[in-house]
């Protein structure tokens, strides 16, 4: 089925994402925020988000795939080094990591 009006796609995708958000609200209204179920769901969220980040850095499907793994991991290490060196300033870590990735790519190819 080919679609002529792309607005249909945009609105349907918006609704499909909102479905999960609304479902989340429905669940959250029915659970105890101090209970085991809430703590379990929180753990599931953390595992998903960490997995997403790990996938983006270690197994990227973006243009980052053209950068070798040692360079990507090295830049992460540099970012964490700068982050802790500059009293946990996020900007320091992100700028150091981004620049070192660009630099290492330019230098090592």
């Amino acid at each position, binding site marked *: 089925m080919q679609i002529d009006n792309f607005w249909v*796609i945009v609105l349907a995708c918006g609704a*499909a994402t909102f479905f999960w958000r609304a*479902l989340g609200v429905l669940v959250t209204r029915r659970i105890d925020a101090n209970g085991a179920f809430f703590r379990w769901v929180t753990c599931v969220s953390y595992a998903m988000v960490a997995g997403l980040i790990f996938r983006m850095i270690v197994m990227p499907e973006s243009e980052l795939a053209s950068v070798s793994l040692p360079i990507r991991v090295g830049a992460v290490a540099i970012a964490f080094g700068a982050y802790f060196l500059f009293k946990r300033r*996020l900007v320091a*870590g992100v700028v150091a990591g981004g620049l070192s*990735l660009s630099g290492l790519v330019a230098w090592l190819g």
Partner: protein
Amino acid sequence: MDADNPVKDPPELLAGNVAVMRKALVDSLSLPAFILLFTMMGFGSLARSAGFGAEMAAVASLLIWGLPGQLAMVELTRTGQGLMAIVLACSLANARFLPMVVSFMPTLARKRASFPRMLLDAQLLSINSWAMCMREFPQVAAGWRHRYYVTFASSILLAAVVGTLLGYHIAVLLPLTLVLGLIFVSPLFFALVLSAVPGRAQRMSMLLGCATIPLSHFFWPAVDLLVTGLVGGSLGFVLGNYLDKRARRDHANR
């Protein structure tokens, strides 16, 4: 007013309209707003190449408000898939919002929020706000967390929509090495933000999420994050509780 839940807090916690909104804006403008601007510029230019209109791309960022789902939509549309396939892929790519909303809403500490307002709060949520709030909320008085969240989330949503339109209209020709650095910034930012999240079970779950994603991605690429969340999160939950119990026992024996 959103400060509808005046809970008594220790005085060292951040409170008050001006102070909380200033912190939210400073936290946003010191990095996340720019990360959103740049990544959504990438989405804008992809949306254009797939045949979407500029206002469609902007509305997609506003309504879907989750990059993995937006990218799935654009990619499958570009390759001429049917509507059901596109919507299903977008929905699956954004299914993480279910556990994220469930784990996030109670941390806002609002006791008397109506259902429509909770839906609005859930619509504003993105991985950036989720991670940032989990990190910053311990420093914000409970009654002011909602104000912090709404200010922070709206500001990065605005940056995202502006970025989408910029990327759509301006073909940015940056050197490839710089583009790579910019793409890299987004996951790096989340990694740094989440490294400061407290709690044994949370930390265990994150470690196990990283450990399980290569396998789940290999065997079930379409639902890899769901599998990783369920397996890694459940193991992290059990292990974290066990370690907590042991720590309490050791403490009691001392």
